[in-house]
């Protein structure tokens, strides 16, 4: 913990555990611990990536941060206040886009605003802004089934941003698109983040993606899920994809993360 940068944490996880019981028909009750004691601090405006093997509880962690799941023990603090449930100070972007199929692009984006009871003309202005921000002008009236994967993800992003949450939680959002679209979306995300400076927690399987996007990368180990290490990514911003991905510094950091992951996976 850095005493110099005295900025208080935006998000604090203290000893967060999550376990649930499964009842198998012939095996009786069985407690499974998804998370075992997670401690993490995230600074305001920070971009934190979370990587880890399957089953390490990444998605559970995100659910807990979103307030959709309650930790079995430990606590989650946002701005010093305990999280007790979901709220509009956090926006979530999921892997499957989760766009409401009966709503157009604009209507999807305005969803959170409707929930906040923002008046109609204001909604229009705001959704216009975000449609422009994610580069979807001309597609306002399209329904989700008429959009490509990349476009859908942009709508999902715009929807999460539109109601101005301070924190953005992203659960492998680019996993379902092809590699090229993925890189484009990564660039876009960084651009938007620089513009809006939200606190972002970005869960991903891809080490490359994590190192490219984040300020820090939290590496999780499984069984039970816990933070093994947090690596500082001290690459300069703005991050230019063309040069960065082939630079030595990038490769070194990537290797560092990878090694840590591998070690975390070795049976203890």
């Amino acid at each position, binding site marked *: 913990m850095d005493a110099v940068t005295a900025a208080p944490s935006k998000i604090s996880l203290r000893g967060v555990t999550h376990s649930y019981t499964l009842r198998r028909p012939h095996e009786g009750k069985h407690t499974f611990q998804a998370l075992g004691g997670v401690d993490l601090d995230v600074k305001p405006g920070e971009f934190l990536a979370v990587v880890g093997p399957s089953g390490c509880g990444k998605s559970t962690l995100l659910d807990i941060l979103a307030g959709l799941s309650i930790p079995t023990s430990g606590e989650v603090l946002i701005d010093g206040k305990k999280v007790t449930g979901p709220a509009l100070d956090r926006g979530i972007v999921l892997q499957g886009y*989760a766009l409401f199929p009966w709503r157009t692009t604009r209507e999807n984006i305005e969803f959170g605003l409707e929930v906040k009871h923002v008046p109609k003309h204001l909604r229009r202005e705001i959704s216009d802004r975000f449609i422009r921000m994610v580069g979807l002008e001309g597609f306002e009236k399209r329904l989700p089934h008429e959009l490509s994967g990349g476009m859908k993800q942009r709508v999902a992003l715009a929807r999460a941003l539109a109601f101005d949450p301070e924190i953005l*939680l992203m659960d492998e959002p680019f996993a379902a698109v092809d590699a090229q679209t993925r890189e484009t979306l990564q660039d876009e995300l960084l651009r938007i983040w620089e513009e809006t400076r939200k606190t972002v927690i970005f869960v991903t399987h891809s080490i490359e993606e994590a190192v490219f996007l984040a300020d820090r990368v939290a590496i999780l180990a499984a069984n039970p899920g816990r933070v093994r290490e947090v690596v500082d990514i001290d690459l300069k911003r703005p991050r230019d994809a063309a040069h960065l991905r082939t630079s030595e510094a990038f490769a070194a950091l990537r290797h560092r993360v990878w090694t840590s992951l591998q070690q975390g996976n070795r049976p203890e």
Partner: protein
Amino acid sequence: MSRAPSLEAPAQRATTAPRLRAAALRCSGILGFAVLWELASRLRWIDPTFAPALSTVVVTIGRLIASGALLTHICISAGRALAGLALGLLIAVPAGLVLARWTPRARLVLDPFLRVLSQVNPFSLMPVFLLFFGSGELVKITTVGWVAIWPILFYTLTAITTVDPILLKTGRSMALSERELVLRVILPASVPTLFVGLRIAAGLVFFMLIAAEMLGTNGGLGWLVHNSAMNYQIPGIYAGSLLVTLLGFGLHRGLIALERHLSPRAGAALPTVPGARRPAAVAGPAPRPSASAVPTPSRWSAVAEQEST
């Protein structure tokens, strides 16, 4: 289709000709039947007193339209049908919502009871309702209402329990209250599947209503047929039957078209066995609806055609 030559003429002609042919083919069955009917009666292959020619029947229908009687009867029948459907919706949708969403355990317990109830023969219920309500509007409306409830209920249950979980997750992450979640996410997502239930209910209601009108009294399309029969007005019987069939056909096609229109708005709705009256709770493996505008070769027939070359 314009026959005038244009810059795009060759490409157009290439696609319109087969489509015209396909459309003609699809009409040929019904046309053939119509022609056969006309001839069979006129040429006395069948005794024309028992089977008046199609043209005679059409004339009878024309008279009914002209006298305004048809419109009256259609309105009477339609009114009852809509009332029955409304009754079904009002009871089944909220019940489905409650069972699926708020008391899922009650639903598990009630499931077999509901299925048994849904399979009670509506014709055997009619006398029971007749005892309760005497003969009148209420009997018909409750009978068709009863018939409408079951498909709507079962499809509502399915619709609500199969809302995409990530949609629910997204809604919950925005701290939506239960009420908002239901109104803004669950119900809109349920509409297409619900509509399938509604469509099936509409078919059943139509079927049951006409039957009830034939067995009962005072007005309506079914009564029209029954009345003609009682007065030995044979063309009237055919006229009524033809009208009911045409209306049913139109209703069926119209609802399917509407369903297709709603479908992209939330993903595939459940298909049903076409032409069936009571798919209700058991729907088979997905058969394609038989009504298709341009016939697509079945995969088997594609194989078959290949083999023969």
